[in-house]
């Protein structure tokens, strides 16, 4: 590859990383369940795009397979499964409740991003530019998604944030471990699908029994 082309690829990798981070913020800010799902799908597609670009950068065909797995499992199968398992009124258009307001959450997410940068900083000497792009942002995405789980009160957004953690981990993973055994990637994809199936069915049961999926307001089991 010419140096010029390498520079282009690097800029594109950075750009995808930037948008990936934005999707993490979007998951906090989305006000409807469908919005969360859409943001998650976009984030998964960005993960796939990053894998394709890194595949070119590292000359690794494995990463293209990873991209294919990500697209099939996360952008196609998960929305499909969610529509099948979760009942329609759960993904209907209505505004979600949050424990902490959106602007405040966004500021906290920013602070988490900076924190992620400080966590990964000691690991970053002698690493490639792609690692510099994906590792901190993958970490930040993980932290933000963990935070999102804690502020979301409803079942499906919680579950999507859970999946977003996995996205963040693999966003860092494709840059730092491009030769990660494919069986591992397949395992993760399988795991994600199992999570969707299990939690989808469980939230339907909760919905059927209690008429709402605001799992955050369930508090019968508090330790007294």
């Amino acid at each position, binding site marked *: 590859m010419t140096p*010029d082309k390498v*520079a*282009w690829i*690097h*800029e*594109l990798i*950075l*750009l995808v*990383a*930037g*948008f990936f*981070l*934005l999707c993490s*913020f979007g998951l906090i*800010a989305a*006000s409807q369940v469908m919005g969360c799902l859409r943001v998650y799908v976009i984030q998964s597609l960005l993960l796939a795009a990053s894998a394709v670009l890194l595949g070119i950068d590292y000359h690794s065909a494995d990463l293209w397979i990873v991209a294919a797995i990500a697209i099939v499992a996360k952008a196609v199968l998960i929305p499909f499964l969610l529509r099948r398992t979760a009942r329609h009124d759960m993904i209907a258009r209505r505004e979600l409740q949050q424990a902490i307001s*959106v*602007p405040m959450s*966004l*500021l906290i*997410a*920013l602070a988490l*991003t*900076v924190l992620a*940068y400080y966590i990964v900083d000691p690991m970053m000497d002698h690493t490639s*530019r792609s690692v*510099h*792009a994906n590792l*901190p*942002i993958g970490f930040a995405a993980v932290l933000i998604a963990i935070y999102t789980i804690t502020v979301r009160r409803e079942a499906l957004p919680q579950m999507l944030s859970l999946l977003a953690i996995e996205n963040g981990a693999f966003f860092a993973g494709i840059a730092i471990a491009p030769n990660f055994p494919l069986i591992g990637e397949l395992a993760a994809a399988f795991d994600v699908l199992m999570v969707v199936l299990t939690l989808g069915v469980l939230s339907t049961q909760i919905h059927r029994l209690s008429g709402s999926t605001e799992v955050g307001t369930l508090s019968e089991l508090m330790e007294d």
Partner: protein
Amino acid sequence: MVRMILFNLIQVAVVMFLSPLAVGILNRFKERVAGKKGPSIFQTYRDIWKLFHKDQILSSESTWIFRATPYVCFAAPILVTMLIPVLTSYPLFFAFMGDMIGGGFVLALGGFFATIAAVDSANPYGAMGASRTRMVGFLAEPVFMVVFFTVCFVANSTIPYIVQQKWVHPESNFFNPAHILVAVAFFMLILAETGKIPVDNPSGHFELAMIDESKSLEYSGSGAALMKWAGSMKFFVLLCIFLNVLIAPWGLASGTALGDVLLAIPLIFIKVLGAVILIVMVESSLAKLRLFRITAFLGLAFVVAVAAVLTRMMTT
């Protein structure tokens, strides 16, 4: 040097005389997308012309502020025009008079006068609109600051003519996340600052729901004409900053011949048309936000702008 001054004047003329056209096209497109016929694209010119020929009525309660405001509002975008690249990719005569922050101050001065004039008119809707504008304004302020900060950080300069070159040298810089994210954040700011959906509905006629429009309700005659004209110029100037400084300097004249500069006029107008179509798409596909959701919208813009800085910091 005389040539540079001439170019500057051409630039001002372009902004003054093409901006109502851009607004007219925006309005017509929006109506067409909504399935209606829509006003002529020259309707804004006709409105301004008509208003100049009408008598002006001034409230006896108002002071000089109310009378001076249309002129201040009208002058502000013209001054900013001299600072920014509208037609040329090289700095013109007045370009070093102020940087992007200076330009921001001048525009803010116009906004400030419009606000206090609205209060001055003693119309209850004016004061309400003014306070809402200020709310949007002070939420937008940190975003502006971070956008400028990022731009300075990347380009090591705040002079728009220098900044614009950074994004395309080398060309791969265009896809730098800092660049794209700053552009996205600034686009959201334009929507908020010029009172577009999802922040404000510019075509609404219900005073209680107005944010931007209610400030100029009391103006009539030439005052109203100037305010209307100033509004369209501000819109045009912001689009020029967005397109020429923050996106890319493509289409700007790089030669110093008069022909080059004149050729740049249609090219710039095509770029503006592109931005107008984008805004129409955004406006037609979104609904206006509740007043208190605007915080979330501008919060998102803020986060996008900070993400631009962060990705820049993390990756260098």
